[in-house]
C-alpha cells in the first residue's frame, strides 16, 4: 500500500517536473537566477530589467552547447 502511494507520488512529481522543466534543467536554473538577479538589483535601487534576458541568454547558450556537444 505504502509502496503504491510512494510510486503514485513519484509519478505525479515526475510528470510535473517533465512538464515544467523538460529536457534540460539549465534553462530553469538560468531563469530562477535571472529573476533573483533582477530582485537583488531592484532592492539595491539599480536599473534591473536587463539582468533577466542577459542571464537567460547565457543559460540558453550553455544548454545549446551541451546539446550540440553530444553530436
Amino acid at each position, binding site marked *: 500500500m505504502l509502496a503504491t502511494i510512494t510510486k503514485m507520488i513519484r509519478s505525479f512529481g515526475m510528470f510535473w517536473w517533465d512538464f515544467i522543466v523538460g529536457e534540460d534543467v539549465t534553462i530553469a536554473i538560468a531563469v530562477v537566477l535571472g529573476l533573483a538577479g533582477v530582485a537583488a538589483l*531592484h532592492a539595491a535601487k539599480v536599473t534591473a*530589467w536587463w539582468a533577466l534576458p542577459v542571464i537567460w541568454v547565457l543559460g540558453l547558450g550553455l544548454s545549446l552547447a551541451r546539446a550540440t556537444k553530444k553530436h
Partner: protein
Amino acid sequence: MNSSLVFLFIAAFLACAVEAVEATTVVVAVGVTRSWRASLHGVGAGVVVLAAIVAALGPAIASIPLNPLRLVVGALLLIFGLGWLRKAVLRASGYKALHDEDAAFAKQTAAAEAAGSQRRGGLFGGDSYAFTLAFKAVVLEGLEVAFIVVTFGANAHNIPLAALAALCAILVIVAVAIKVRGPLSKVPENTIKYAVGILLSSFGTFWGAEGAGARWPGSDASLIGIIPAILLVSFAVVAVLRRQRERAEQLAAAGPAQGVTA
C-alpha cells in the same frame, strides 16, 4: 485593441494550433485504424477535463495580486518558451530532426493496428484503447495550452480573449483535419513552434522581470522591442550553430582521407 492584446491573441492562437496539430494527428490515426466513435468520445472527455482545469484555475489565478502573479507566471512562461525556442534552434540549425507529422501519423497508425482488438468493449465508445489514446492526446497536448490561456489571460485581465484565440485555433485545425482526414503535414508546425517559442520567451521575460520589481523602459510598449530582439538573438545562434555543424561535418569527411595519406 492595444499591441499587447494583439500579441496575446497571436501567442495563444499559435501555441494552441501547434498542440492541436499534435493531438489531431493521434486522434485521426486512431479514428482511421480503430474507431472514430471511440476516438471522438476520447476527444470529448479530454475537452471536458481541460475546460474544468481552465474554469477552476482561471478565477483562482486571476485573484492573485499582480506582481506575485507576474513573477510566477513570467518564470513558468519563460521556462516553457525557452524550452520551445531551444528545440526550434536545434531543429533550424540541423542538430535535431524536424518534427514530421507524416512519420508521427505512421507511427500512431502502426501502434493502433498492432494493439489488435483485445481491448474492445461496450464502454468508451466501444474501444477503450482508441478512447484512452485520444483522451490522453487531448489532455496532455492541451494542458500546456490551458496553462498559456489562463496565465496570459489573467496577466492581461482578458481570459476570454485568450480562450477565444485557443478556440479559433482548434476550429481551424479541426477543419483542416476533417478536410484531409490524414496527417496534417501541410501545417508549418516547425515554423509555428519557433514563433511560439519567441512569443512565450518575450512575454515571460517582460512579466518575470516586472514581477521581480524591474520597470521596463516604455512599459508595455517595450514588448515591441523585446520580441524582435529575441528573434535576432535566436537567428544569430542558429547561424553560429549551423556553421559549427557544417565545419564538424567537413572535418569528419576530411578525417579518414587525411588518415590514409598519413
